[in-house]
C-alpha cells in the first residue's frame, strides 16, 4: 500500500456494532493534498492495531487485538494447540496485516466475516473433532452442541458462511462442505447465518441438534428509484412513460456536452447535431415535433427548472430521466408539452468512505469534409459547357489553351481543405465523494478543451466546471446544498462560419488562397476577401461566460411520513463578449474590416432565474396499501438585462482608441439596460396523489395550475391534470402459477392520460409594443430615430396537448432480457405559432393559437445482459417513431408559403411544414418529348431538361401540378449499444441513426454553379444529363439566368428532396481494466484505459452532406426551408481515455 489514499481507505474499517447498523460514528474533516489525497481522522475505536509482543501465546495476542479493534475471534482449542508463540512488532497496521504477521509461521489461516475472524488449520480435516472455545468475555453456561450444514437453494454447500449465536459473540464459519458445529447456551438460542450474496437467516435452535439450513440468494435489496417531477419514485411504481439514462451510457465518449451525449440513449429522444463547431449546441427533441413553435423540452436540473444542458459537466451526472407522457410530465404543467428532461447530479453516499475518481479523454479531432471538388481543369470544361448550354449567346469563359495550361500546372489546395486542420480535444474530470451518517459530499472539477478545426490563431471552447453537492442532517431537518459554477471561454473568428465555409467551398482548385509573398489573394469568385485571410488575420470574438447554479433544499420531517420541503434554486448567467474586427488587405483587390482601424466592442448580459418551491409530502403504508401525496406552490421568475458598446477605428494592435479624433462610437452597437430588459414570471400550484396496493396495482393523479405573465389576464391561468395507472400482472398469483411465468417473468402494464401545456412564446405579446430604432432616416443630413411596433395578440392563450400513453414493461429469461413498449397519442390544441402572414397585412409576425396537431408514435426499448463463463454481453436497442398531422387549422384554410425554391404548407391532413413542389418525370430526351410533354409556359426547354408530372393533365405545368413532397421530421430514430466484456477487456459499439427522413437540400451542393454564385462542380454532381447519359441523376448543365436553369433548378421540385436515412457508428470503445487485485496493489479500486473513436463511419445515401445536419433551426421550428449544408465539418474523433478510481 504505497498510495496514501488507498491505504487510508483500508484502515478505515468499521467497528462492531450490535445494532447491525452500517452507520459510522466517526467525525471527519478533510483536506485536499496535491488535489487528490483525502485524509481521515477517526476517533474512538481504532481500526488499526499496534502490538509489541515477544513469544506471546496466540490466544493472548487475539485478546489484545479484540480489545483494540472490537473484532471477535472464532477458533477451536484443537486448532490453537497447533499454534506457536508469536513475536510481532507492529504499529497502526490493518487487521489483515496484523493477522498475516501473527499467523506468518503458523499452520493456521484466517478469514474475516462480519467483524468475526475465524481461525482454521491450513490443511483442515473434517474428521477432526470440533470444539468451540469461548473468548474471555463470552458467557460460560452448559452448552448444547449443534451440528449443521448450510446449503443453497440447489442443495450445494455454502462454504465460509458465518454462524453466530444471536446476542453473543459465539460464532463459527462453515467449512468447505458447508458444515459447522457450534455450542449454544440453551434451546432458546437463535442462530444467525449470513453469507455474502445470500439473505441473512435466523434459525431458532429449539430441540434440534442437527440442522440443515437452506439459504436463499439475496435479491437486490436496494430498490431502484426513478427521479420524477418534484421527487423520486420506486421504479416498480412508475405509471407513466419515463426513460432513465444511466451515467454509464455517457461514459468514455468524447462528448462536448450533455446534449451530444444523450444521442441514441433513449427511444424517441432525437438529438440533431446542427454544427460541430465549438460552442454550438445540438437540437434535442422528445417524441417529435408537436408544436409549431419552440419544441425544446423543459430542462430541470436537480429539481430547478431552466438550466442549460450544454453547461453541465457530463461526468457530474448521476442519471437523466426523460418524462414523455402526461402521467409523468403533467406535474410540470404549462412547460411540459415538449417533454421534460430531469437531470440529477451525483451525490456522495453515506457508505462511501471517500472515493477519488479521475476520468480523462484526449482525442484528435479530424474534420470530415463531405463534398469533393473536381480538378481545376475539369471545372473549367464544365463551366464552359454550362455557359454554352445556357444558350444566351454568351461565349465560353475559358479557352482550350487556358484549360490545357491549368491541367499542366495542376491544382492548388482546395480552399476548404486549406482552412481546416486537425485539432485536439481534451476532457479531464476529477471528483471526490463520500459521506458518513449525517452528511455526504461530492465535489468535482472538470476541464474541457475543444479546439476548433479552423486554421489561424487558436480558436475553440474551454469549459471549467466546479460542483459541490452536500447533504447534511440536523435532527429532523435534512439539507441538500448544490453549488455549481461553470466558466466557458470561447475564441471565435470575427466572421460568419457559414460564409467562410461556403466561400471556400465555392472556389475552384485553379485559384490560390495565399501567394509566396504571404499575400491573401482574391479572385473572380471571392472578389473581396478570402476565408484564410479572415481566419488568420481578421480578428476575433471572445466570449467569457459565467454560470452559477445553486439550490438549497431543506426537508423537515414533521412526523413520520410527513415532510415539508422548501427549495430555493437560482441560475445566474453572466456572459461577456469582446470582439475585434481587424483590417486585412487582399491582393489584387478587396479588404476585410476597415483600413481606418479596427472595430471593437463589448456586450454583456446578465440573466437571473429564480425558482422557489414549497412542497408538503406525505407517505403512509398500511398493510399492503401505500399512499403518497404531495402538494406545493412554486414560482419561476426571469430577468434578463444586457448592454453593449462598440467603437470604430480603434488601433489594430491593442484595440485602443488612440487617436480620439478618429475613433468613434458605433451607434448601431449601443444598448443600455432599459432597452434590453426582459422579464417573465410564472406562478404555479402543483399536486400529486398516488396509491398502490401490494405492489400490484398503482394509480396516480397529478395536476398543475399555472399562471403566466406571457398571457393577458383573461387567458393567464391554465390547469393541467393527468391520471395514470399500472398493473403488475406478473405479481398476480394466477400468473405466477402459469407456464408463461417461466418465459416472461414479469409484466407491468401502464397507461396515462392528461393535458400538458406550452407557453414557449415571446414576452409581452398580448400588448402592442413600440420600440425605437436609431438611424431611421435623414432629413438634410440630420439623423432621426424611428419607432416600430409589434402587433399585439390579446387572445394569445395556452397551447394544450392532450396525451394518452399506454405501455408495458416485460422481463424475460430470468431478468436477462427486459423490454419496454409504448404507444402514444397526443392531440395538441391551440398550437402556438407565428403563421406566415399576407404581405397585405403589412406587419411583423405574431404568435397565434392556430391549429390542432395530432402526434402518434410508438417506442421499443430492449436490454439484454448475460454473463457467461468467458464473455459478458450487454445489448441495448431502442427505436421510436412519431408521425404528426395537422387535424385542424383555426380558420380552416391551408397556409402555403414559399421558402427558397420549395414551398411549405400547413394544411389539415398533412404533417406540419410539409414541402410542396413539382414531381419530376424524367427528362425531355428529344424534340418529340419537347413537342408533346407538358411544360411551363414561357420556358423554352431542350433535351436534358427536367420534365415534370402534369398532375391535372391539362397539358401545361403550373401551380395546379404541385405535390406534397415530404416533411422534415425524422422517423424510426434508433440507437444500438453493444458491449462485450472478456476478462479485463471491454468493447463498446454504439450505432445511432434515422430510418426515414425527407431531407431538403439546396444550394451549390445540389445545383452546379448555384445561381452563378458558385464556380465549383462537385464530384457527386458529375452524373448529369448528357446525350450519352440520359438517365442521369441531375439534369443538363446550364448556368443561372437561362431557361434550362430556371426549368430545372428554380421551380422547386423533388430534385431538392433527398433520402435522409442513415446509420452512424457513433462510438467505438476498446478498454482494459486492471484486475482488481492488481489495481488494489497500486492503490486503486479501478483502473481502466481505453481507446475511443467517434463518428467513425456513416452509412448514408448522400455522400456530400452530413445526414445529421438538419433543416430545423435551433428552436426546432419547422418550416425553415432546405438545408444548404454550409456547415462546419463533421468532427471525427480518435481518442485515448483513462478512468481511475482510488
Amino acid at each position, binding site marked *: 500500500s504505497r498510495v496514501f489514499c488507498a491505504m487510508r481507505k483500508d484502515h478505515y474499517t468499521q467497528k462492531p456494532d450490535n445494532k447491525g447498523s452500517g452507520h459510522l460514528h466517526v467525525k471527519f474533516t478533510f483536506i485536499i493534498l496535491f488535489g487528490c489525497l483525502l485524509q481521515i481522522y477517526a476517533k474512538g475505536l481504532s481500526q488499526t492495531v499496534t502490538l509489541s509482543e515477544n513469544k506471546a501465546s496466540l490466544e493472548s495476542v487475539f485478546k489484545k487485538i479484540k480489545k483494540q479493534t472490537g473484532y471477535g475471534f472464532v477458533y477451536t482449542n484443537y486448532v490453537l494447540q497447533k499454534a506457536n508463540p508469536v513475536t510481532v512488532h507492529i504499529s497502526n497496521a490493518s487487521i489483515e496485516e496484523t493477522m498475516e504477521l501473527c499467523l506468518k509461521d503458523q499452520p493456521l489461516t484466517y478469514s474475516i466475516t462480519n467483524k468475526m475472524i475465524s481461525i482454521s488449520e491450513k490443511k483442515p480435516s473434517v474428521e477432526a473433532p470440533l470444539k468451540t472455545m469461548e473468548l474471555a468475555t463470552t458467557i460460560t453456561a452448559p452448552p448444547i452442541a449443534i451440528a449443521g450444514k448450510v446449503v443453497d437453494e440447489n442443495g450445494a454447500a455454502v462454504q465460509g458462511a458465518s454462524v453466530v449465536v444471536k446476542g453473543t459473540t459465539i460464532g463459527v464459519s462453515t467449512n468447505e462442505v458447508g458444515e459447522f458445529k457450534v455450542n449454544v447456551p440453551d434451546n432458546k438460542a437463535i442462530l444467525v447465518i449470513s453469507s455474502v450474496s445470500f439473505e441473512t437467516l435466523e434459525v431458532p435452535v429449539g430441540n434440534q441438534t442437527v440442522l440443515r439450513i437452506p439459504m436463499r440468494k439475496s435479491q437486490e435489496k436496494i430498490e431502484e428509484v426513478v427521479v420524477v417531477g418534484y421527487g423520486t419514485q420506486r421504479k416498480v411504481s412508475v405509471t407513466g412513460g419515463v426513460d432513465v439514462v444511466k451515467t454509464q451510457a455517457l461514459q468514455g465518449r468524447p462528448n462536448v456536452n450533455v446534449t451530444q451525449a444523450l444521442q441514441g440513449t433513449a427511444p424517441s429522444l432525437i438529438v440533431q447535431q446542427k454544427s460541430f463547431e465549438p460552442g454550438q449546441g445540438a437540437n434535442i427533441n422528445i417524441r417529435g415535433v408537436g408544436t409549431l413553435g419552440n419544441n425544446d423540452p423543459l430542462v430541470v436540473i436537480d429539481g430547478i427548472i431552466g438550466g442549460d444542458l450544454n453547461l453541465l459537466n457530463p461526468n457530474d451526472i448521476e442519471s437523466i430521466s426523460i418524462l414523455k407522457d402526461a402521467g409523468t410530465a403533467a406535474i410540470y404543467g404549462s412547460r411540459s408539452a415538449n417533454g421534460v428532461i430531469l437531470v440529477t447530479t451525483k451525490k456522495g453516499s453515506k457508505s462511501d468512505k471517500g472515493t477519488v475518481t479521475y476520468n480523462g479523454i484526449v482525442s484528435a479531432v479530424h474534420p470530415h469534409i463531405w463534398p469533393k471538388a473536381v480538378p481545376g481543369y475539369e471545372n473549367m470544361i464544365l463551366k464552359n459547357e454550362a455557359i454554352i448550354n445556357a444558350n444566351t449567346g454568351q461565349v465560353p*469563359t475559358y479557352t482550350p489553351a487556358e484549360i490545357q495550361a491549368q491541367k499542366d500546372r495542376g491544382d492548388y489546395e482546395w480552399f476548404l481543405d486549406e482552412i481546416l486542420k486537425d485539432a485536439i480535444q481534451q476532457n479531464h474530470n476529477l471528483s471526490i465523494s463520500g459521506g458518513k451518517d449525517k452528511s455526504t459530499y461530492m465535489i468535482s472539477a472538470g476541464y474541457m478543451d475543444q479546439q476548433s478545426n479552423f486554421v489561424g490563431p487558436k480558436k475553440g471552447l474551454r469549459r471549467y466546471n466546479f460542483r459541490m453537492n452536500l447533504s447534511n442532517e440536523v435532527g429532523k431537518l435534512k439539507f441538500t446544498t448544490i453549488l455549481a459554477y461553470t466558466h466557458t471561454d470561447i475564441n471565435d473568428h470575427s466572421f460568419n462560419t457559414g460564409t467562410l465555409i461556403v466561400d471556400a467551398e465555392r472556389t475552384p482548385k485553379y485559384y490560390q488562397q495565399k501567394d509566396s509573398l504571404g499575400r491573401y489573394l482574391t479572385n473572380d469568385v471571392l472578389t473581396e476577401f478570402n476565408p484564410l485571410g479572415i481566419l488568420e488575420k481578421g480578428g476575433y470574438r471572445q466570449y467569457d461566460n459565467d454560470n452559477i447554479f445553486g439550490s438549497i433544499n431543506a426537508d423537515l420531517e414533521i412526523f413520520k411520513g410527513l415532510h415539508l420541503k422548501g427549495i430555493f434554486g437560482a441560475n445566474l448567467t453572466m456572459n461577456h463578449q469582446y470582439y475585434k474586427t481587424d483590417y486585412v488587405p487582399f491582393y489584387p483587390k478587396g479588404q476585410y474590416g476597415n483600413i481606418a482601424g479596427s472595430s471593437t466592442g463589448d456586450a454583456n448580459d446578465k440573466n437571473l432565474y429564480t425558482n422557489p418551491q414549497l412542497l408538503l409530502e406525505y407517505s403512509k403504508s398500511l398493510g399492503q396499501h401505500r399512499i403518497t401525496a404531495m402538494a406545493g406552490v412554486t414560482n419561476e421568475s426571469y430577468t434578463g438585462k444586457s448592454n453593449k458598446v462598440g467603437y470604430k477605428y480603434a488601433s489594430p494592435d491593442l484595440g485602443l482608441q488612440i487617436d480620439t479624433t478618429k475613433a468613434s462610437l458605433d451607434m448601431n452597437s449601443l444598448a443600455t439596460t432599459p432597452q434590453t430588459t426582459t422579464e417573465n414570471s410564472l*406562478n404555479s400550484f402543483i399536486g400529486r396523489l398516488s396509491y398502490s396496493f401490494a405492489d400490484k396495482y398503482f394509480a396516480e393523479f397529478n395536476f398543475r395550475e399555472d399562471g403566466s405573465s406571457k398571457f393577458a389576464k383573461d387567458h393567464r391561468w391554465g390547469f393541467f391534470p393527468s391520471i395514470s395507472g399500472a398493473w403488475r400482472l406478473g405479481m398476480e398469483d394466477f400468473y405466477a402459477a402459469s407456464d408463461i411465468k417461466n418465459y416472461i417473468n414479469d409484466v407491468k402494464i401502464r397507461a396515462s392520460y392528461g393535458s400538458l401545456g406550452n407557453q414557449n412564446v415571446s414576452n*409581452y405579446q398580448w400588448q402592442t409594443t413600440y420600440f425605437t430604432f436609431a438611424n431611421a432616416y435623414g432629413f438634410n*443630413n440630420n439623423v432621426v*430615430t424611428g419607432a416600430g411596433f409589434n402587433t399585439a395578440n390579446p387572445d394569445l392563450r395556452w397551447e394544450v396537448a392532450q396525451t394518452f400513453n399506454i405501455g408495458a414493461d416485460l422481463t424475460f429469461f430470468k431478468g436477462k432480457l427486459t423490454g419496454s413498449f409504448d404507444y402514444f397519442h397526443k392531440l395538441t390544441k391551440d398550437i402556438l405559432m407565428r403563421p406566415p402572414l399576407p404581405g397585405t397585412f403589412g406587419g411583423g409576425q405574431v404568435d397565434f393559437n392556430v391549429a390542432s396537431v395530432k402526434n402518434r408514435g410508438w417506442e421499443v426499448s430492449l436490454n439484454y445482459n448475460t454473463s457467461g463463463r468467458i464473455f459478458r454481453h450487454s445489448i441495448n436497442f431502442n427505436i421510436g417513431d412519431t408521425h404528426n398531422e395537422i387535424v385542424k387549422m383555426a380558420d380552416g384554410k391551408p397556409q*402555403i408559403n414559399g421558402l427558397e425554391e420549395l414551398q411549405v404548407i400547413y394544411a389539415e391532413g398533412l404533417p406540419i411544414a410539409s414541402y410542396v413542389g413539382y414531381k419530376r418525370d424524367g427528362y425531355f430526351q428529344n424534340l418529340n418529348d419537347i413537342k408533346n410533354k407538358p411544360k411551363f409556359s414561357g420556358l423554352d426547354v431542350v433535351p436534358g431538361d427536367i420534365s415534370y408530372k402534369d398532375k391535372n393533365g391539362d397539358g401545361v405545368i403550373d401551380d395546379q401540378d404541385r405535390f406534397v413532397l415530404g416533411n422534415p421530421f425524422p422517423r424510426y430514430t434508433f440507437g444500438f449499444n453493444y458491449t462485450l466484456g472478456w476478462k479485463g477487456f471491454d468493447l463498446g459499439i454504439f450505432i445511432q441513426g434515422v430510418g426515414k427522413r425527407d431531407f431538403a437540400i439546396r444550394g451549390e451542393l445540389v445545383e452546379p454553379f448555384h445561381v452563378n*454564385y458558385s464556380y465549383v462542380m462537385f464530384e457527386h454532381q458529375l452524373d448529369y444529363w448528357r446525350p450519352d447519359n440520359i438517365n442521369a441523376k441531375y439534369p443538363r448543365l446550364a448556368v443561372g439566368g437561362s431557361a434550362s436553369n430556371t426549368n430545372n433548378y428554380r421551380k422547386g421540385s423533388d430534385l431538392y428532396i433527398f433520402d435522409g436515412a442513415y446509420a452512424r457508428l457513433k462510438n467505438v470503445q476498446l478498454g482494459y481494466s486492471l484486475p482488481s487485485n492488481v489495481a488494489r496493489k497500486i492503490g486503486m479500486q479501478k483502473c481502466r484505459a481505453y481507446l475511443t473513436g467517434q463518428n467513425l463511419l456513416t452509412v448514408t445515401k448522400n455522400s456530400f452532406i452530413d445526414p445529421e445536419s438538419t433543416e430545423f433551426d435551433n428552436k426546432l421550428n419547422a418550416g425553415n426551408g432546405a438545408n444548404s449544408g454550409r456547415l462546419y465539418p463533421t468532427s471525427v474523433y480518435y481518442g485515448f481515455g483513462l478512468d481511475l478510481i482510488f
Partner: protein
Amino acid sequence: CKKLDLAPTNNYTDLNYWTSADKANLVLNTDYNQMTDVTNVFYNEALSDNAYNGRGDAQGVNSISAGIYDPALGRLKSEWGYHYQGIKTTNVLLENIDLVPNMDAALKARMIAEARFLRAFHYFQLATWFGDVPYFTKNISIEESRTIARTPRAEVIANVLKELDEIETVLPVNKQYTSKDVGRISKGAVIALKARIQLYESNWAAVVTECEKLISKTDNGTYGLFPSYEGLFLPQNKNSVETILGRGFVPLDVTHGEFIDFVPLSIGGRVNAMAPTQELVDDYLMANGKTIREAGSGYDESNPYVNRDPRLGLTIVYDNYAWKKPDGTTATIKIKPGSNTLDEYKSGTSSSPTGYYIRKYYDPTSGSTFASGNDVMLIRYADVLLMYAEAKNELGQMTGSIWGTTVGAVRQRAGFTGAALNFNAAWSKTDMQNIIRRERRAEFAMEGLRIFDIRRWKIAQTVLNGTVHGAKFGDSGVDNGYIIAGKRSFDPTKHYLWPVPRDERGLNPNLSQNPGWN
C-alpha cells in the same frame, strides 16, 4: 417572485406610447424610412434596356428581364410586402395621432398630410406594377388581410389622386421648411407626384396643369435646374434647387451601398451586378445634337465615346475612361480584352458583362465600403420639365418657347451648346416624341425611371425582346462584334403587369390574378 402583470421596460405599449408629439413623430420617421427601397430604384434600371444584371438575380431583375419568372419570384413578394408595410405605418399613425394630448394643430395637420402622401406614393407604385391591388386606409387586422380582395387599378389611382388633392393645400412649400426639416414632403412634391401619375395615365392635360404649377413660379415651391449635371448627383449638393422628392440619407449612419457592385472592379467593386448596355450608349446624342446613325453625326464606331452628349461620360464608364478619384487624381479604366486588368471584359466572370460600368451617383465620399450618405432623388425638376414637354407635344401644343424652357434648358444644363439646343419647327409630333423620349432616357439613365417609361409607352415588346449587347469586344463574326451579354424576353399579353405573388394568393384566396398568369 415577480408579479404576473409585467409591463415591458424595453418597449412602450399602447398605454404609454401616444403621449407626446415627439413619440408620434418617431412613427412618422419610420414612415419616411419605408418610403422607397432605393436598391430597387437602382436595380430597376436592369429591368429596362438601359442596363443588364449579369451575375446573380439581384432584386429579381435578371429573371424578369429574361421573361422566365413566375408568381413565385421573391422580388414580387418583397415589392408587394414592402409597400403594404409602409401603408400600415401610415394607417397606425393616423389611427392613433388623435390620442396625443395637447398637440399643436398645425403640426398635427402637417404630419397627417406627410403620412398620407407616403401612403399614396405606395399605392401608386403598387398599382403601377400589379394593376389591381387591395386598397384600404385603415389599419387592417390579420383576418382582413386574409380575405381582402383587389380594388380595380383605376379606382386605386383615382383614390390616390384624391388623397393628393386633399393634402396639397395642407403642406408647406419647400422653402418654408427650416433646415432640419428640409427633405420633408412639401406641396411641390405632391404636385410633382400628381404630374407623374397623370403622365403614367397619359392624361396629358392634367400633366400640363400640374407641371405648370411648378414651372416658372414659386407659389408652390422654388425649383430650378442645378447648374451642373455632374454636381447634381454628388452628396454635397443634396437637396439642391432641383430636388422635389428624395429619399434622405446621412453619411455613416443612414446609408445605401449598391455601388460596390456597380463601379469598376479596380476601383474596389466587389463584382459587377449591373452594367449599362450598348443600346443605351448608342442612344446618347452626338454633341452636335444628332443621333449617331444620323447623317453628318460625325460618329466614329472605332472611337465611339468622343463628341457625345456630355452626360454619357458622367453616367457610364467605358474603355479608357478617366475615372476621377476622390483625391482628385484620375485612374484609367481599361476594359478591352487583353488589357490584363481587373476590369477587363471576360465572359462569365465577375467583371462587367457588357464592357461598361456605372459612374452616375457614385459617391466619392463613400470610401471603400461604398456606403453612401447621399440622398436619392425620386422626382427632380428636370423631370417636371420633360413631363411638361412630353404632354405639350402629345397635346400638339409644342412650341419653340416651350422647347427652350424644357428640352433646351435640360440640354443646356447638361453641357450641350450650339445646334443641339435649337428648336426645329419642321419636326413632326412623332419626331418630337422621339426626341423627348430619347432625352428622358439620357437625362434619367441609371435613375430607375426608364422601365416605367417603356411600360407606359407600350414599347416593351420591341425594346425588351432579344439580345442584350455590350461594347464591341465580342466575336467579330457575330452581331458586328458587339458583346452578346444575354437575352431578354417580353410577352405583351402578360408582362405589362406583374403577377400577384404566389404566396399572397396562397395566404389570401380572395386575391385574383392578372391575365396570363396563374
